[in-house]
């Protein structure tokens, strides 16, 4: 199984989720994160002093899929999350050795 980590723009979350579901992914876990990269953060003003915020708000999706489904999932994210603008984000793929569904104790792909 593979763990697919995607860091995308917050307002793209719903589209990406739908795309993944469309690609057969049955579940995923989302966290709100701050990103640093080419896209620069906003300028906050306080008492006339401007402060360049280093980080940009992003959402991180984590989905574990079976090896077969990995490529499709990556494709789905790529097409759904893309705007062509700097800051669209990244996708990373890691190997997962084991998965367990707590409720049933099922393991492996069956647990997803």
């Amino acid at each position: 199984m593979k763990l697919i980590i995607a860091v995308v723009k917050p307002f793209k979350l719903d589209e990406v989720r739908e795309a993944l579901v469309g690609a057969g992914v049955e579940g995923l876990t989302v966290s709100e994160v701050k990103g640093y990269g080419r896209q620069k953060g906003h300028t906050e003003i306080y008492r006339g002093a401007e402060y360049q915020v280093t980080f940009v708000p992003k959402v991180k999706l984590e989905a574990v899929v079976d090896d077969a489904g990995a490529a499709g999932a990556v494709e789905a994210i790529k097409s759904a999350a893309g705007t062509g603008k700097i800051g669209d984000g990244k996708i990373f793929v890691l190997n997962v050795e084991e998965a367990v569904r707590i409720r049933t104790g099922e393991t492996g792909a069956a647990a997803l």
Partner: protein
Amino acid sequence: MKLLGIQRLAGLAIAAMIIGAPLAAVAQNVTNAATNAPAAANAADANATNDANATNAANATAAAAPAGNPDATHDYSKDSVNSGDDAWMLTSSVLVLMMTIPGLALFYAGMVRKKNILATIAQSFGATAVIAVAWMVIGYSIAFTGGGTTGMQPFVGGFQYFLLAPLNLDINIASPLAPTIPETVYMFFQMTFAIITPALIAGALADRMKYSAFLLFMFFWLILVYCPVAHWVWGGGWLGAKGALDYAGGTVVHLNAGTAGLVAAIMLGKRKGLGTENFAPFNPAYAVIGASLLWVGWFGFNAGSAVEAHDGQAGMAAAATQIATAAATLAWMGMEWMIAKKPTVIGMASGAVAGLVAITPASGYVNPTGALIIGIAAGVVCYFAAVHVKKMLGFYDDALDCWGVHGVGGALGAIMTGMFASNKINSASHGWLTDGNIGQMGLQFLDVGAVFLWSGLGTFIILAVLKYTIGIRVSEDVEVEGLDINLHGEVVQG
């Protein structure tokens, strides 16, 4: 060790109160007889006062009462309370209390980072409690009694109102400074001023002061700095007698607190991370809500300073306040819009407060047009003072701009009062541009100078003593991790 120190302090405070109070209860029966004499004396002072500073707004009113007869102002049947004046002054007192809690608490809490929100609120709330008790015990006595021209009278009040003794014995007395309402109401109204003035200083101390030191500072500053100054201008003291005009406290309250803030900010040193870390406030909404409540409550402050509602004074003061505040809000907003490209909500809120501060000494003396001009000036001047001058000078970290807004705004207002005071609005006032009385300018500058010096010196001494005894600043770890969890064991979650 330190903790123990803190406890011991707190312990002592409580102990003192628990013992002190019953004593007082006894005391009151003693004073029972005793006070008759002082009371008479006081009545005498009263007239002295009336003549002494007939130019003083409050007393211009006082004069309106049957002045010849001390009893009339000193032990009259309850029927001579003007119910409308009483209603308005009770309301005004409540409004001014609301300015500090929750108004000021929110205004300041809305400009700090998450980790210091509760500590900031605790400063306004704790100050309210400490000062209210101190005012009842002795503050009112030394600020608003025993005014006059002889001996110490021009500089500090008497002690016959220790524990408000006379008010313990007779419900039907009035102060010569407010002849148409019960003295209890006048004492309460002035208490709310005494509360917010030291509380304002917290803006300069934000994010780094020890709470025990803060509370002691509030107490000593009230007694040693505020009470005398209030006496000078309003309590029958020398500045009021000379004819300096300060309707609701441009110098007594705002310049006084602002100067203290400046000195305190220097003595405390800068906040860790200033300039390198993002100090953007956690929830600017709090600041605007707080500023809104300050704005709303300020009508008790300015219109309440008429100390009555039976003529046009309170109304004119209210109108001037509203006009100047709105103008200052627009002026600050406009400056920011042009210079920083975006009008911030904290800027609007600060502009409003700047306008409220600057019109404070003038309200009740100036006409609506004068108020408009003062408001615009306040917005522009305080914007530069708080934002640009502070950065330029850079040697003090006036965290929430106590000096930039209250100090500068208060002085500006006091001086512009001299320019625009109109005897069409208040027979007791004659301004330079309006009535050609340039002499008033001198008095206003004298007022500003005297308050600046006294406040600066007093604040320095008090903080110096505290610094070398219990210490005034928290440890770096505490400052980094936040005052809320470390000083109060609580946090704003989420």
